[in-house]
């Protein structure tokens, strides 16, 4: 483990073990299962005495620890200037060689336990299916960074072969694209209103209703003096406002807590092959999103964020051939949880994307969007009729309220659904409450489809669905007049004529 220098060029020898702390981590991780859970079951069912159960716990823990040790012992890795080799396997051994050629970049992740012990989980980002090809869990942080530097030197060497002499020089620090101050993390949390804590508290209150109930609390308060119940009865409105305010407060608090846990120290740097994002308080994740995999840019905003002029920037990334580890860089990746428009523009340019156009420059979905959805509401008349027939005005009232509510909602949604097609880009915006703007380079278009439902046919409109790699569903332009959709089909697919990837 002290020998950190890579071997000479040539085939690498897998000589190094993972950090011995891996054994400790493995044992600690096993404690809940082998040390507590299984013996607890045995104690409960076989009626051993507590002392016996403890003995059983020690026994299972020891046996599982032996396996952890054996697994550690059978895993060796090594690297030289251009490849990483891994020997693993207890019974069936496996020797795996991953040339640096195939490695885009290196991901380093540390959860709480790792950080306490000063180790990290390192995994490599390859072009094709990732899986657990090149995962070293756990090696010291220094070793992980050394391997990452070796990979980067190799890739730098590819670009400029005459820089061979500089091999020993540490690669220059990557430019920082975006970093979040603690203040901004908290601000971002405030905008991420989350009712999950409310739900959890409500669930807990429900469960422990016997031991601790709100009525008993009120009784206790009342015995001390003020007549709470009467007060609440007379000031019902104030009480309700109070409750709503408390719920809102809890919502904002839980948003802040979540934001602190996931986005603490959020830093975005520009690497050679992709964007590197480091974030997290207890679990620190260090992910690389390769440029090549980025399919679309996304600008998201909620109503409160928008009012204050903030945006959230994300990209949709393709990910590998569906292996679990590759999922880390697949799907929607948030690159800027909270940014102002100029920061967002800067990042988009750095990614090779483009800033979206102004609202006015985009074409709106128009009347058909609204009409079609109002037609969907027609079945809501049934409860009204039934209500009138059965003399139950409540049903009718609810249905009428629903219809009246949906009129402005659908109208605004229709206005907010916009798109713009230029020679290289397609911009599609959706949503009236939470707004979402998709920035699609035409070179990433896979398929184009015109889909027409029965109501759309009568109204003369269609939905244009654009298939993009790694994007669940499609990028869709809804309720376009049919002729316009047909006219768009060719320009959209035109870029696809030239192969890419």
């Amino acid at each position, binding site marked *: 483990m002290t020998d950190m220098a890579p071997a000479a060029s040539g085939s690498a020898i897998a000589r190094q073990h993972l950090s011995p702390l891996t054994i400790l981590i493995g044992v600690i991780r096993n404690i809940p299962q082998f040390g507590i859970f299984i013996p607890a079951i045995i104690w409960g069912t076989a009626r051993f005495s507590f002392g016996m159960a403890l003995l059983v716990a020690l026994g299972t823990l020891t046996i599982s620890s032996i396996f952890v040790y054996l697994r550690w012992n059978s895993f060796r890795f090594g690297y030289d200037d251009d490849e990483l080799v891994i020997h693993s396997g207890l019974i069936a051994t496996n020797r795996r060689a991953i040339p640096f050629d195939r490695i885009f970049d290196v991901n380093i992740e540390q959860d709480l336990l790792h950080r306490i012990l000063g180790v990290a989980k390192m995994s490599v980002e390859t072009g094709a299916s990732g899986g657990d090809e090149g995962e070293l869990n756990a090696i010291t942080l220094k070793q992980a960074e050394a391997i990452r530097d070796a990979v980067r030197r190799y890739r730098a060497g590819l670009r400029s072969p005459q820089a061979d002499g500089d091999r020993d020089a540490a690669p220059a620090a990557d430019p920082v694209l975006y970093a979040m101050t603690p203040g901004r993390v908290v601000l971002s949390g405030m905008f991420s209103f989350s009712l999950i804590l409310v739900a959890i508290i409500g669930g807990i209150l429900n469960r422990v209703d016997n031991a601790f109930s709100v009525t008993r609390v009120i009784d206790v308060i009342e015995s001390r003096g003020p007549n709470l119940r009467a007060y609440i009865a007379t000031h019902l409105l104030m009480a309700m406002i109070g409750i709503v305010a408390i719920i809102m407060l809890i919502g904002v608090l839980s948003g802040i807590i979540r934001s602190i846990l996931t986005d603490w120290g959020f830093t975005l740097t520009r690497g050679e092959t992709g964007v590197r994002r480091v974030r997290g308080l207890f679990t620190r994740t260090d992910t690389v999103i390769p440029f090549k995999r980025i399919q679309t840019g996304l600008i998201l905003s909620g109503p409160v964020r928008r009012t204050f002029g903030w945006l959230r920037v994300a990209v949709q990334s*393709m990910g590998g051939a569906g292996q679990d580890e590759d999922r880390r860089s697949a799907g929607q990746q948030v690159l800027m949880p909270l940014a102002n428009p100029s920061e967002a523009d800067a990042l988009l340019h750095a990614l090779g994307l483009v800033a979206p156009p102004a609202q006015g420059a985009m074409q709106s979905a128009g009347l058909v969007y609204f009409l079609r959805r109002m037609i969907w509401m027609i079945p809501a008349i049934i409860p009204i009729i039934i209500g009138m027939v059965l003399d139950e005005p409540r049903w009718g009232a609810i249905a009428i309220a629903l219809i009246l509510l949906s009129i402005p909602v659908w109208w605004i949604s229709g206005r907010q659904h916009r798109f713009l097609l230029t020679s290289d880009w397609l911009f599609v915006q959706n949503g009236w409450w939470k707004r979402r703007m998709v920035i699609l380079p035409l070179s990433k*278009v*896979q*398929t*184009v*489809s*015109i*889909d*027409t*439902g*029965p109501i759309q*046919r009568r109204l003369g409109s269609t939905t244009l*669905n*654009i*298939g*993009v*790699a*790694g*994007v*669940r*569903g*499609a990028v869709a332009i809804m309720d376009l007049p049919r002729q316009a*959709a*047909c006219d768009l*089909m*060719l320009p959209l*697919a035109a870029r*696809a*004529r*030239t*192969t890419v*990837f």
Partner: protein
Amino acid sequence: MNEAVIISDDDGQPGITEGPLSRLDPRYKGAYRFMLILGCVALWAVASVANYLFLPPDLLPWKAITALCAVALLLTAIIYPPRRYAAMGYRVDEDAILIARGRMFRSETLVPFARIQHLDIQRGPIERLFKLSSLHLSTAGSRHGIVVLPGLPPHKAGVLRAIIRNSIQREQP
């Protein structure tokens, strides 16, 4: 290779955007009908068994189930296949293929050749019975990951595959 036929939808307007579409092989009607009949028979079997096992014996007499299934069979197997056949079509451009399907929910998908990851010619057992095959085009898009063009006689499927392959190879630098 294919007679150009215009597919019209209910209101008599030409259905497809850029011109005439080729039809599938007429034997597709028969193959689809066969599949529907098999489906109905399976449904009848399941319904009868469920009725026997789970419902009280006099609730739904076996004859009623058989009659219901027979009616369903008749309606679907006679009426539906020709309508479905009429609503399907395709057109091969110089660098893309357009595949259209569906009447009520119509979908017209344009797949540029350059975007085809790989293509398969598949023949299921029923297709083999009717001497048909289907072309499965794989793309990288998750929305239309696999686009299927059924109802092709084998030689036509082979010709299409060759056209697509040649077009892709022409583009390789």
